[in-house]
């Protein structure tokens, strides 16, 4: 299927169930260089298994995301969607399998902040912004760059950085509310602010967990536009329950079921797939 997986198959590495890898702080330059997606694939998940007390949240999950792609992931509750995001962002260490960001970055060998620095942004299911900071400050904190303590003590925003924040405020439609505390925003606006924070990180890959949950139809429509405009420059993975929303944005849809990929294809192909129909309607 691709070079990395075939190489690994040759060396027989990915077959054997390995213990979780230790956290190794890799040289910073590997991370700051960002992912090497020269083979067109930005995310490799291969044979990932995660179990919690015997329950397999992810079961031999294999998934590839192309650079610049907008991928939707659907699946019933408990299908492992959030666990998958946890593995990608370094929150959960899998029991087995491998996860690579491009050709060069082994996601299982890095901590959450390192993975974020390397270029993976994540939006949580429940909008999580810094409620007591202003909208502007939320974006400022999320801005890409060195995040060491001593630098933050003396940091001043350059004009260029201010412009960047202004641009993002424009994209997420919150320019007029920049000085308000984020806690005062509506639910939908918080979701956008969180997406804005992801943009400030300048990520190569955005993981977006249920972006339109609790949104009005107008807000949903705007969010769809926003995500579509991001694809291409960034790779976007969206986990969503709202089928209409998925239909409106998706080119490729992956269906997860019991921690495993059940089907993959266009929305129509997936909806016509008898296995998918059974999972969603049959029981």
């Amino acid at each position, binding site marked *: 299927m691709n070079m990395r997986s075939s190489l690994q198959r040759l060396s027989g590495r990915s077959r054997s169930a390995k213990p979780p890898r230790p956290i190794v702080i890799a040289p910073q330059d590997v991370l700051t260089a960002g992912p090497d997606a020269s083979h067109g694939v930005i995310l490799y998940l291969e044979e990932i298994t995660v179990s919690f007390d015997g329950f397999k949240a992810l079961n031999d999950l294999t998934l590839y995301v192309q650079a610049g792609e907008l991928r939707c992931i659907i699946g019933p509750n408990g299908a492992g969607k959030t666990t998958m995001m946890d593995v990608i*962002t370094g*929150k959960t260490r899998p029991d087995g399998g491998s996860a690579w960001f491009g050709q060069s970055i082994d996601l299982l060998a890095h901590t*959450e*902040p390192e993975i*974020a*620095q390397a270029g993976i*942004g*994540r939006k*949580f299911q429940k909008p*999580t*912004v*810094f*409620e*007591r*900071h202003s909208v502007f*400050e939320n974006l*400022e*904190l*999320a801005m*890409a760059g060195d*995040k*060491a*303590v001593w630098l*933050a*003590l*003396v*940091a001043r925003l350059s004009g260029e950085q201010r412009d960047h924040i202004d641009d993002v405020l424009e994209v997420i439609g919150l320019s007029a509310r920049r000085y308000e505390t984020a806690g005062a925003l509506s639910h939908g606006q918080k979701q956008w602010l969180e997406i804005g*924070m992801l943009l*400030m*990180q300048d990520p190569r890959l955005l993981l977006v967990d249920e972006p339109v949950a609790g949104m009005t139809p107008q807000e949903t429509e705007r969010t769809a536009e926003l995500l579509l405009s991001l694809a291409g420059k960034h790779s976007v993975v969206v986990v969503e329950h709202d089928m209409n929303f998925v239909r409106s944005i998706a080119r490729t849809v992956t269906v997860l079921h019991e921690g495993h990929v059940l089907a993959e294809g266009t929305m129509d192909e997936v909806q016509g797939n008898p296995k998918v129909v059974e999972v969603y309607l049959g029981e």
Partner: protein
Amino acid sequence: MDRRGKIFLLVLATLAILVLLLNTVVPASSSLHLSTYTVGLLGKYMCYAMLAMAVDLIWGYCGILSLGHSAFFTLGGYAIGMYLMREIGTRGVYGDPVLPDFMVFLNWKSLPWYWHGFNMFWFAAVMVMIVPGLLALVFGWLAFRSRVTGVYLSIITQALTYALMLAFFRNDMGFGGNNGFTDFKDILGFDLTHDATHLTLFLITAFALGLSYVVCSYIVASRAGRVIRAIRDAESRARFIGFRVESYKLWVFVFSAVLAGIAGSLYVPQVGIINPSEFQPVNSIEVVIWVAVGGRGTLYGAVVGALLVNLAQTFFTSAFPELWLYALGAMFVLVTLFLPQGVMGLFAQIQRRQRRPVASAA
């Protein structure tokens, strides 16, 4: 710095000048005269205020409820106390030029290695910061790396101060056992029984408090300050946007411990004694109450809280000695229930109420 910060510094400076005038210029016969005893008491409160500010920085801004900050305060006090003990020299009861009295009493023949260097003031002054800072660094590194948070962290900080208390009670530790250090004679050659020395120490403490305020407000207003509050409010979000949460927590914790250590070093020459009872877990809890009463997350609120509670304590313990602990408990409960933002929050509320009619009229 915001307007309230400037007001705070102005009040502090006025208070310091007032104390200076009332103690020296106003004759002792006048009813307005401030006795050296009162000056010492105020100096002691200012040290507590600095400690409260250190706790506010870590609790109010970073959300880490440290119930062991008195340990850092006391360690700073012990460090300066070692210098003061060595300053006594031949003026001690046993007249040994090198060994402090309690070591002679224990029949020790030579100075333990960790007492070397404390005959020099500058060395002690550096140790005042290094000892608490180093302890906070090691303790914090272990705790934050393992992601110990919330009530669990509070409990282990209590255990830390309790363990230190037990250790310092032992005579073999070489810190004077349960008697600790006392009978100090002079600091840098200035006689500690002189009124002028006490007044100077008070003024230095007031200056140190003001300086701590300036430094702390700089920190909380910087981007690092915003990161720290972000960690308090949504730790995992901060982690996922690329901040090493542990480093930030560790940094604030160590800085706060150093500040507490400095406060302790100003405290000991003024009260003239340091002993292991200062490590008591309840002391650290009291500091948290001061901060809660004053209003956390404001820095000056911590100072106001420390002063208010200690003034109340001075009043109660002389008027109704047996009631003080009940009063303290009641104060904590009332503040938690009715003034979650503390006394400072009450002021802000009153201000808003006064402004509202004006705003609606306009």
